[in-house]
């Protein structure tokens, strides 16, 4: 049905597309370290080497009941429910920062368990609901 010329171009394009897809996959794979926006506490624990001078980001949930504030600074724990990292920070906190919610801290590690942040971002999850529904959900939990 197709002319020979068209068929030739068709095969050529399919091959070209496959080749490019593989190339792009390999590029992205090798850049993975740079593409991830933050590391989870478990990832930091399992890393062979951690740099204490390089700026990194740690993300996870703010552990319930872990926030302690004094006048200038705040200390809390970031957890991924497997490992935990203590974060200390002084500065403005985003409105949505709260216990049990997602958070990303940017700063430097002091050691594998202690992180000094100079910027805090609140992470929003994919759940959207009106306040009444949230209330009903919470009540049904207990």
């Amino acid at each position: 049905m197709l002319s020979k010329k068209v068929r030739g171009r068709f095969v050529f394009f399919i091959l070209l597309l496959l080749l490019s897809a593989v190339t792009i996959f390999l590029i992205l794979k090798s850049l993975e370290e740079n593409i991830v926006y933050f590391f989870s506490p478990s990832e930091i624990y399992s890393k062979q080497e951690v740099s204490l001078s390089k700026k990194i980001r740690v993300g996870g949930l703010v552990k319930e009941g872990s926030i302690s504030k004094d006048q200038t600074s705040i200390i809390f724990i970031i957890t991924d429910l497997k490992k935990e990292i203590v974060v200390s920070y002084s500065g403005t906190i985003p409105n949505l920062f709260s216990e049990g919610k997602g958070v990303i801290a940017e700063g430097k590690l002091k050691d594998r368990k202690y992180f000094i942040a100079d910027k805090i971002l609140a992470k929003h999850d994919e759940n959207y609901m009106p306040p009444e529904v949230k209330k009903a959900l919470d009540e049904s939990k207990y």
Partner: protein
Amino acid sequence: MFKKFLPSKILSSNSNLINALLIGLILVILLGLIYSLFISPPDYIQGDSVRIMYVHVPSSFISLACFGFIGIASILNLIFKIKFIPLMAKSLAPVGCVFALISIVTGSLWGKPTWGTWWVWDARLTSMLILLLFYLGYIFVWKLVNNFEKANKISSVIAIVGLFNLPVIKYSVDWWNTLHQPSSITLTSAPTIHYSMLIPLLIMLLGMVIYSFIIFLMKYKTELIKFKIEKTKNQK
């Protein structure tokens, strides 16, 4: 369905179709805006800024869909070399580009009160910016390269390369850790967005799709007329 977009059909169609679509557009957008601004509830944690989503999500969807069409059309174009395919692809670019920009701007406006920042270089936001750049590149090639055949080839290659960016945008939130949240609406599981927010979102999506289609039809018709004029000029 494809036959409806043949040049002869488009050129002979009067403005009735566009007028009917315009009436539909006004009704749907009006309903969508009333629903999303007044009827739908605020979010339990974001408050009223959740309403930005009703523009942000459809814009992102349309900009990705338009580029998908442009990319596939470009492949068909280079294989089959049918004259009206590049004109269709070209006509989709402006509306897709504008929606990519709207998606980024509304996302930024939402990010400030929610995340605490206007912009971060995470995988989702960066790949979306790359999509906008591909749109601009595609459009500028058509604008700046005067020779039709040459512009057609270069822009098609740009669109095909840009096509690979689309799955990266879509799955960036699943493949890598990003600040951007994962999708609330997926094909495989129940939406994690309450139905009182899902309904206005879908109405707005419908309205914005109709809008894009109208803009596309108008642009496509213009492009066809321009192409015909060029052709008759060259014959003389």
